[in-house]
């Protein structure tokens, strides 16, 4: 799997090797961090926190996940000793000022994304442009994957899209190179995973939800989307409904106390409702 990622990802091919060396943030005890902190002036540490916040915002604007190795190389530099403190404060600032949460989507390779902390609305008034169309396409794909049991073969996804007049083999008016958008851009942004199915020859691939999709939306939201299109109650799909409700309960009361307008029986109510 690491093999495939290296060839498909952006950035230098030897990046993985270099990254392993640069991605060294010494693990220190709390008291060691405290002592390192005391040697630096508060202004110096604040400066680093501020630089990190700016860096994270700029990187995340493009939805490319941020590697810890890059953070250490480009921002932290000589302040590695207090890395944990800097990242903690940066995370707090992002929440307090921007309503954004710094989420580590890959604890092994230390990769981060920013996710909005604010209660999700039914209609988001973020930029309406090609991005909206892309997110629409993505939502359709995520829905298909979920309804199919959380994974689907590449061929099945293309077949589904063709029925919607989006053909991976034909240049699309809005999406351009559809295959590239779905298998590269969405994958790079961690909205989708594109994995080789083992023991297939010629190699076949399947799609699954990516880590960013898991954070930015939920099974219940997607199920509601499907239900809305088909004009049915989400409970018409009992397997999926059970699964979505379980996910909500596991996530806990994140949205329990929020009453958002136009809330079609929002996540909050879903969490409280007992279905089994």
């Amino acid at each position, binding site marked *: 799997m690491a093999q495939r990622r290296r060839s498909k990802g952006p950035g230098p091919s030897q990046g993985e090797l270099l990254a392993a060396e640069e991605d060294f943030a010494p693990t220190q005890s709390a008291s060691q961090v405290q002592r390192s902190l005391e040697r630096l002036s508060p202004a110096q540490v604040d400066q680093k926190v501020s630089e990190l916040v700016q860096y994270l915002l700029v990187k995340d604007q493009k939805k490319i996940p941020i590697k810890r190795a890059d953070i250490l190389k480009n921002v932290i530099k000589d302040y590695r000793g207090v890395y944990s403190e800097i990242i903690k404060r940066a995370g707090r600032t992002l929440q307090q000022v921007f309503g954004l949460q710094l989420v580590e989507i890959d604890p092994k390779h230390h990769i981060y994304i920013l996710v909005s902390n604010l*209660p999700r609305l039914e209609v988001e008034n973020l930029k309406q442009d090609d991005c909206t169309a892309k997110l629409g396409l993505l939502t359709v794909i995520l829905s298909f994957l979920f309804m199919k049991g959380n994974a689907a073969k590449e061929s099945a996804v293309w077949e589904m899209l063709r029925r919607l007049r989006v053909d991976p083999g034909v240049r699309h008016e809005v999406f351009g190179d559809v295959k590239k958008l779905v298998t590269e851009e969405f994958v790079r942004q961690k909205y989708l995973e594109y994995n080789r199915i083992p023991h297939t020859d010629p190699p076949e691939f399947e799609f699954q939800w990516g880590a960013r999709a898991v954070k930015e939306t939920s099974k219940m939201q997607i199920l509601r989307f499907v239900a809305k299109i088909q004009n049915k109650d989400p409970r018409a799909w009992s397997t999926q409904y059970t699964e979505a409700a379980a996910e909500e309960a596991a996530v806990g009361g994140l949205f329990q106390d929020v009453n958002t307008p136009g809330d079609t029986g929002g996540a909050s109510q879903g969490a409280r409702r007992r279905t089994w």
Partner: protein
Amino acid sequence: MATQMTDGHRRFLQVLMSHGIMEGSVARTLHRDCCEIHKVYYAHDKLDDFINVVNIHVQPFFMQIRKGMSEDDGRTYYALVNLAETEITKMASDYTENELELFRKTMDVIIISESGFASSTDILNLADQLKTKKMKKKEAEQVLQNLVQDKWLSERDGEYTLHTRCIMEMEQYILSNYQDLVRKCNICHSLAIQSQVCETCGIGMHLPCAGKYFKAQTEPHCPHCNEFWPHEIPEINRPDSQLPSSALRERRRTPSSGTRRH
């Protein structure tokens, strides 16, 4: 006095961050919606106070929500700008070395020109002479398209000028780097990329500012030297009128016969 960030402020900030720049009426609607959704105190005429709260909190990160005016239609725009003005920081991560060089050289042409525009021919010639790495025509055309999409340049009839967002973001940088080569509007004293210039004393004005200043005067005179103002005065239309830019475009082509900037 409320100086705390609320979820209303955070949502406003997130939306503005994703747009980059936003027209005044859109910003006012967003202000209202954010306050409504998060049950935050709302007064329709207090958008600037609301924005000040945000600015207090983003200032440590060299960010600021700024209010500016479009040189094309005179409308108010709000943009989230980066104040670190030592170099073109935000662009640096999006563009390669030679793309940045092309942009800087294009900006030179735009600023030094009479009209505030650079033709696509001019720019393609620049692409061919880059020091970092020459760029072919097709590549340069793609870069121009990206610059327009990212709102650094705006295009009109095959000619390019600086986008309102670019002017707002880089005003400090431009003023300090170009100094006497740039013009400031005599009326509002902000940087003027497109302008009408007095042929006698050389002062300049934004087209919308000229429109407002000379409104309904049959014989407009230069506010500085009192000579006859030789340009057609742009008509200032109501903000929701469809015509402003095309109306202003016609005026721009009126010859301001070979005045040199000094």
